[in-house]
């Protein structure tokens, strides 16, 4: 138990960070039926902005700036790359998403010179070490799950009890009818991207506190894993994404603990394929029937 414990603690923490990214996927997929391949890269950009701002500015300016920059990026991506393709086939939309991901990675390569940027000024307080069940760990491992759950509760309230939330649910149910009922669909989609990017930025702040540096492909793997979490939990469902993310985070760390680090990524994809084949709607997803 003593040997497994640090991995368990880490798993819960990583799971929380995946959950924050996974919500972005699940919200966007719920409305646009699009796997936003660029979401992982938005997460990476948040990490890079954090590295740059925290070295140049005091913490109370830098952190809000990271959140704002990421939200703006998410908003711009949607307006430039996805909005013109509203009526296009879904394949074009997905190709556009892959193109955006490629663009962001290449721009990041150009700006950073391809060198992973070291996290020199980690966020104070949460990067301090604390003792937990006799194990030394950073405080961020404790903060992450709590913060994740608070944000999720807030989001669920927003979706279930506000006008904007109602519009989002309507758009997810039936895009065209919602439009006919006078819902400003473009505004709803923008808000979705803003929320998704905001949560990804929070996730990035927590995630990269635990890592020595941010590279241009740092976002790809967490992004894909968060997507798997969203599918696992039932895509379109927020609690599903959160539960899925925690399960994946825990399993991944346990596999590392058992000494199969090479397969910790492969496991996630194996899980994805099993879920897709056995229960494509995921843990909490609604059953969808295809109409001709």
């Amino acid at each position, binding site marked *: 138990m003593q040997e497994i414990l640090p991995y368990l603690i880490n798993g819960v923490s990583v799971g929380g960070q995946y959950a924050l990214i996974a919500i972005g996927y699940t919200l966007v997929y719920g409305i646009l*039926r*699009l*796997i936003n391949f660029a979401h992982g890269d938005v997460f990476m950009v948040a990490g890079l902005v954090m590295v740059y701002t925290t070295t140049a500015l005091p913490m109370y300016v830098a952190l809000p700036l990271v959140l704002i920059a990421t939200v703006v990026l998410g908003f711009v991506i949607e307006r*430039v*790359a996805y909005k*013109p*393709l509203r009526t*296009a086939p*879904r*394949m*074009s939309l*997905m*190709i*556009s998403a*892959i*193109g*955006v*991901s*490629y*663009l962001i*990675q*290449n*721009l990041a*390569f*150009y*700006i950073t*010179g*391809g060198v992973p940027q070291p996290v020199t000024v980690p966020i104070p307080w949460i990067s301090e070490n604390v003792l937990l069940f006799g194990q030394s760990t950073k405080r961020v491992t404790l903060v992450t799950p709590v913060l994740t759950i608070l944000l999720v509760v807030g989001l669920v309230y927003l979706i279930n009890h506000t006008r904007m939330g109602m519009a989002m649910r309507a758009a997810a149910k039936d895009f065209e009818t919602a439009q006919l009922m006078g819902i400003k669909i473009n505004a709803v989609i923008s808000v979705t991207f803003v929320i998704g990017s905001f949560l990804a930025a929070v996730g990035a702040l927590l995630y990269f506190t635990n890592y020595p540096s941010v590279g241009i*492909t740092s976002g*790809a793997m967490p992004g*894909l894993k968060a*997507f*798997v979490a969203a*599918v696992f939990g039932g895509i379109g469902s927020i609690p599903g994404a959160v539960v899925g993310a925690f399960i994946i985070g825990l399993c991944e760390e346990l596999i590392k603990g058992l000494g199969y680090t*090479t*397969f910790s*990524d*492969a496991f*996630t*994809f*194996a899980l*994805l*394929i099993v879920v*897709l*084949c056995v229960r*494509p709607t995921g843990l909490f997803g609604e059953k969808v029937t*295809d109409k*001709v």
Partner: protein
Amino acid sequence: MTKRNKTLFTAVVLAAALAASLLVDAFLPSYHIAVQVIQKATVYALVAVSMNLLNGFTGLFSLGQAGFMLLGAYAYGVLTIPVDKRASVYQYFDGGAIHFSIPEIFSGVLGETVGTTVGMLAALLVGGLLAALLAYLIGLPVLRLKSDYLAIATLGFAEILRAFFQWNALGPITNGSNLLKSYPTFSHVTPYVVLAGVMIAFIVLLINSTYGRAFKAIRDDEVAAEAMGINLSRHKRMAFVISSFFAGIGGGMMAMYMGTIAAAPFKSSLTYEILLIVVIGGIGSITGSVIASFLYIFSSEWLLRGLDSGTFLGINAPDIFKNGFRMAVFSVIIMVIVLFFRRGLMGDKELPDLPDMIRNGIRKLRAPRRRKEAGK
């Protein structure tokens, strides 16, 4: 243009391509950048066409290409490394588990030159067949999935495969996370051009057959195709297996071109790159994929090199033209094509349609001018 003229035009273009590659071999040394570029471009062309067969002609959005290429590349390397070099290549795994080399077996029977070539081709074929076999197995569960789920599941399989090839326990065969090297390669461009050309010709013949028409029917409307008596799962599986076979062979050729094999280059970003080439060329056009591959490799490896190294078109600005600028410019161009020229270079037109397309293009360019003159 009449059908006969079209055939003639195609034949002339293909003959010219072959003649050009023979000329390049005759006059340029094998380390010349043109040789490198053509070799890489033919490999990309083959893989792009194989991806187009799946994504453009059958409508199956699969992102597993890099995984099948990885398999083809490793199969080629493992089977062709000469026996006496295995001890140094597999130095951490006691000389490896395999103690034969296909080209050497063949050269024992057919003589040095012919035997080695036949052996190399056989190894490529084995790579392709392995990829096809794996595709068959993966296809059983995965091909039931729809569009984006299929994409993410195939992407996942490619990543799993990559993890297996880096696993130390398989080291005696795959050399774990170390490089495979010292295997025989073709140093000229003609073998690449001929190989890729023959493979692509196979795919063209397939697309023009009844099977090809069934694929297109599935792409256009699955339900209608099924109602017309097309066996959906059988045809989908067939397209997937054939596409993977050629991706496997493309992977083997990629190994030849690169000279060393590691699992790292076969990441999902390789698949994305090839997908974007297919999009630039036009989803559903074989010719488009080939042209786009050559354009892409030519400009990224050669023409736009200056964007990365300080001087471009005579402008010297090392602060802007620094490492990575080339790819940044490239990805912006790709986004413009994805957003505004969704049909790509060729749309769904092929090589025989090219003269007509050019003629129509010129007419269109002239037309507004004539109207303006009439208005005056």
